[in-house]
């Protein structure tokens, strides 16, 4: 029987389907009888989703318009200097 700590250690491998069958079964058996670990798995997955959905390109929409003109000019100057 896995402990809660071992379940947390194996969680990413479980989600990536990288656990051997025996460990996978032990993981699922633990989740069936341990509500706090169900919450841990759910909130871990939610953490991954939040990072992807709120901080990635898709979340940011159109490019920011606050690019300072000084930066644009510095880049173009660097281009001219070669």
């Amino acid at each position, binding site marked *: 029987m896995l402990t809660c*700590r*071992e379940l947390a250690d194996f969680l990413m491998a479980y989600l990536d389907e990288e656990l051997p069958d025996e460990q996978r079964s032990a993981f699922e058996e633990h989740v069936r009888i341990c509500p*706090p670990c169900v919450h841990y798995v759910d909130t871990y997955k939610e953490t*991954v989703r939040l990072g992807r959905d709120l901080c990635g390109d898709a979340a940011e929409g159109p*490019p*920011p318009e606050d690019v300072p003109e000084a*930066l644009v000019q510095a*880049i173009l100057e660097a281009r001219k200097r070669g």
Partner: protein
Amino acid sequence: MDDPGERAFVERLKAGDEKAYETLVREYSGRMLAVARRFLRSEDDARDAVQEAFVSAFRAIDRFEGGARISTWLHRIVVNAALMKLRTRRRRPEASIDELLPRWKENGHPVDAPTPWSAEKLVQQDQLRRLVQEGIDQLPDSYREVLILRDIEELDTQEAAETLGISANAVKTRLHRARQALREVLDPALKESV
């Protein structure tokens, strides 16, 4: 790259057309600045990384073969420039991530039993975005960069390993710890009120 307009644009760059260079900078610097800001906490460092990325791109434009879109190519260059900048800023040994990881009793049970997160709090997008960004900023750099590359830039494990010059196993270990730490940081603000 099968967009004829983009192919012609690249030819103008290769021919040294200064107007095309200005268009390139004005068109892509915003997106590149947004990417650099994900990695670098200082705005000055993010702007430096964008400038350094463009200088690298200008030097490499003759070798740009058109296998990728310009946007994808520039994206990779600015990610590398930001990572390089992060490394040069890492003068002191970074803080341990252990403080941010879940705590366990000797019998393997959690010190604080996990509880569900509030669906109501999870829909407050603007607040949530700030919370997640601040949470990511609390991670030590070597964990933060892995989390950004894998979960935000959506590189696969091997790509992230090659980008960072570490093993695939190190990427997996750091990613899992970074996610666990971020979950712990978000938990107090997102759990259901009792």
